[in-house]
């Protein structure tokens, strides 16, 4: 399969993981952006731009420079807000709406957000499967994906790493 630049919509969780683990002082977000186009919904951007924490400080310059792409989410489907506003945050609902409107793959690390996205007919990926896809269908070097998967493994169920490393062989 020929390599291509893949695009994903990141929920706040995966964005946080990519911002939190540095290599040589640079968060992995910078590594992934060399091989993928990353979108975040407008609702999450407001948080990125107004926040003052570690994650906001990494992500907001990239949003300002338009290295991370920002897209507004549509209001539809309204049933998403009606049925799930008690369990999902605004950002997670915006991520699902944007994925439905654009056809781009959303990345969730929350089981409920993942399952609800599936109920709307989406095929979301977990963070580690995004890494695998970036290697198998994109041009992220296997060594980089392996390093990121190992460094961030504490954020996910431990057994995921065994499967991820096997998929990256």
């Amino acid at each position, binding site marked *: 399969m020929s390599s291509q630049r893949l695009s994903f919509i990141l*929920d*706040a*969780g995966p*964005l*946080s993981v990519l911002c*939190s683990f540095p290599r040589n002082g640079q968060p992995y977000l910078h590594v992934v952006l060399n091989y993928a186009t990353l979108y975040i919904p407008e609702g*999450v951007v*407001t*948080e*990125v731009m*107004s*926040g*003052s*924490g*570690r*994650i*906001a400080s990494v*992500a907001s310059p990239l949003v300002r420079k338009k290295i991370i792409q920002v897209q507004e989410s549509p209001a539809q489907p309204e049933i998403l807000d009606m049925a799930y506003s*008690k*369990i*999902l*945050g*605004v*950002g*997670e609902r915006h991520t699902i709406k944007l994925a439905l409107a654009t056809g781009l793959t959303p990345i969730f690390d*929350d*089981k*409920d*957000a993942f399952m609800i996205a599936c109920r709307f007919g989406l095929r979301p990926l977990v963070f580690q499967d995004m890494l695998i896809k970036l290697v198998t269908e994109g041009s992220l070097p296997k060594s980089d994906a392996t390093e990121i998967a190992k460094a961030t493994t504490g*954020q*996910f*169920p431990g057994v995921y790493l065994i499967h991820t490393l096997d998929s990256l062989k």
Partner: protein
Amino acid sequence: MLTRETYKAYEIYREIAPDIILTANEFEDSLRALHTEYMQRQFTIGKMADLLGVPVLNLYDILEAAGLPTRTS
């Protein structure tokens, strides 16, 4: 009395300055109650952030400072 970790988390919370600022004790009570429900899968971390009145990206920093785990699934 607040633990050192909780106070550090409270400082982050105050820096974010949500519309309604809780006292340190109210913050600790809310954080622990919401975190318990979050760990019991009553809602996601995004919803927890909404209920606490902070951006979800900052909530990760708050939880880390307070020594509270995020769910791993």
